[in-house]
């Protein structure tokens, strides 16, 4: 009898401790920001303008009660996380950054290496933020870019506009999405990382080219064709469309893949790297007034030459720009030498930027047309 009473009282005492836990949160009482934009505050007050967008849960589903799909809030704060805290005093629920997808850096922020580094460090240090966050450079201010999302037409997904454009396999090399981890890693390895740029159009958002960050500082831009050339030089070119002129007309060529081999040649203290690029693909468009059929090998070889010429021109331009103008090794030559020729790297690694600028880099592109389509 006595024992029973003791057991019963133990159970009763335990009940209050079993009812829940410190971390109980209802999922609809948390806001999940999707993208975050950071600008330098040019007016009075704190340092940054933080803009956060999150989906409006009430606009999802069949019986949506509200029209507006995204909520966009912004505040002035001295750091990203302070901004989030400040905003939570204005909103009904707290933020949880676990689902954060896109980080938009405003134009005025990217000119200062310290600021970008500070933001990137804060993001990579945080436990909950996914390290797959895509980095984007806004052509103007990040706030304007995010504010224009609701105006963008043809928007199907709730809020994920920016992210959908940055993920998935798109048959273009006009911009190259980059994640937080890759951004940090590329700056560690070669000092240079390239993030896609975004601009607001009249009724949509456009991504194009790339912003070159050297040691976390913006030093220049690439346009769309240059970005493609850079992808070719990096050996990461997948599928794209090339237009080349051939005998007074244009032919378009679809690539299905490319392979690159780097070869290091050292003779008489002169460093030389040869990039051997093999491109595979098929002909997409070819109209010839006199000879509309495409049925001999020589013609194909001539076309291959024409495309090679076009691509070589593009890549050499970009190479020249990287070497002479920016002195930044965005194509991973230094990484390659340090991995495969560590002895050479020990000699030249310390002033790599200068060595890279004066280096002889030869690009050898070999285009193959494998298929010609359904009609001859």
């Amino acid at each position, binding site marked *: 009898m006595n024992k029973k009473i003791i057991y019963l009282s133990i159970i009763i005492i335990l009940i209050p401790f079993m009812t829940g836990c*410190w971390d109980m949160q209802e999922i609809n009482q948390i806001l999940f920001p999707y993208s975050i934009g950071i600008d330098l505050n040019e007016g009075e007050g704190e340092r940054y303008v933080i803009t956060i967008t999150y989906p409006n849960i009430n606009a999802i589903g069949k019986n949506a009660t509200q029209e507006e799909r995204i909520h966009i809030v912004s505040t002035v704060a001295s750091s990203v996380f302070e901004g989030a805290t400040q905003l939570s005093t204005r909103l009904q629920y707290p933020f949880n950054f676990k689902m954060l997808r896109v980080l938009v850096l405003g134009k005025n922020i990217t000119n200062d290496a310290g600021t970008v580094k500070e933001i990137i460090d804060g993001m990579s240090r945080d436990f909950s933020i996914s390290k797959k966050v895509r980095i984007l450079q806004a052509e103007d201010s990040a706030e304007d870019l995010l504010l224009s999302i609701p105006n963008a037409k043809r928007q199907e997904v709730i809020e994920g506009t920016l992210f959908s454009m940055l993920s998935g396999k798109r048959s273009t090399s006009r911009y190259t999405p980059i994640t937080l981890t890759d951004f940090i890693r590329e700056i560690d390895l070669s000092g240079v990382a390239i993030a896609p740029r975004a601009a607001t159009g009249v009724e949509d958002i456009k991504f194009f080219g790339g912003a070159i960050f050297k040691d976390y500082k913006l030093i220049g831009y690439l346009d769309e064709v240059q970005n493609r050339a850079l992808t070719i030089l990096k050996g990461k070119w997948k599928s794209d469309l090339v237009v080349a002129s051939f005998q007074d007309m244009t032919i378009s060529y679809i690539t299905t893949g490319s392979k690159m081999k780097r070869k290091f040649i050292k003779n008489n203290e002169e460093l030389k790297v040869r990039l051997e690029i093999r491109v595979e693909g098929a002909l997409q468009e070819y109209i010839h007034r006199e000879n509309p059929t495409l049925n001999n090998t020589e013609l194909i070889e001539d076309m291959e030459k024409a495309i090679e010429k076009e691509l070589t021109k593009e890549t050499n331009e970009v190479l020249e720009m990287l070497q002479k103008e920016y002195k930044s090794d965005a194509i991973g030559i230094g990484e390659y030498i340090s*991995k495969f020729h560590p002895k050479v790297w020990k000699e030249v690694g310390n002033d790599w930027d200068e060595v890279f600028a004066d280096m002889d880099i030869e690009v050898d592109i070999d285009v193959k047309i494998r298929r010609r389509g359904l009609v001859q």
Partner: protein
Amino acid sequence: MRETNEISSVQIRGLIVSTVIGVGILSLPNKMAIAIGNDGWIPIILGGIFSIINVFIINKIFQIYPNKDFFEIGREALGKWVFNFFIFIFFIYNMAVMASLSRNLAELVKAFLLETTPPEVLIITFILATTYIARSEIQIIGRLGYHIYPIIIVSIIILIIFSLPSIDYTNALPVFQFDISKLPKAVLDSYFSFVGFEILLFAIPFAEDRNNNSKIVRTSISAIIIVTIIYLVVFFLTLSQYGLHSLQRQAFPTISLIKEIDLPGFFIENLDGVAMAIWTLVIFATMAPTYYSAGKILSNLFAVREHGFFIIPMIPIIYIFSLIPQNVLQIETILGTTINYLGIISVVILPTLIYLIGLFKVRRRADE
């Protein structure tokens, strides 16, 4: 009881693997990258080899003195007082390991899973959960290890499969570029990730094959080899994912690697929560044998047959130990260093000493 309730060889292997793998697996790649760079796999392999030697010595002790348990052997070889001194250090070592494990666990669970729960509550609940299993005999703990072991193997395989698409194996290059003078410290660092096999001292007397010594030697060495392979895999995966410079900055590269997993179509992402849950189980399997050893040593020092009496009074001691470090860095500097020094005494010196003296005595007896 010994006859009916024994530990099979498979259970011994599971017990060692699940005991050895603990906090070390989360930070080992980072430590190796800092200590020696791209060639971190060399100290991992060397650490494994030293552990194999150590395990071999522990097995040999029980071969020299058959049908005796660790305490009887120790008393016979070293004499009562010397041995008591050593096992007291062994006891302190176990307590420090417990404290460090529970504190590390609390810090990580708080960071990744339960943000607002106070770490004190996490520590005390986890110690209480371990208390339950630590009161059982070694056979039951052996079975625990046997059941955690496949979980570890399967999670490592899943980790490999999921992270293969995003890694760049050339990041592991160049090889053999390390500074030889840094090697000893790196080997010592990696060796400390292998301790935990000292549970063999308590497990072998209850082993099914205790009369067939070579079989236990084979099982326990194969367990250490499995652990070495797991460490190597984790090291190469994190190095390939991050490259050397980023890896040197990652505090918990293994967890960060899991955070990188991003399968298309929003199907699986943010796996760190799941990984933490599995890792909690792994830590449970590391803590249980340690707790058991501490209890066993105390019961022997006080000449009490049942070690279960001592388990519950140890809770507050472990709790206070675990709250000594004021911040995350101090967990490593205060508790970590203590564990390393005490560990060398109790895991390396004590068995080796018993073995050498035992060998000497056996020889002398043979001469007479």
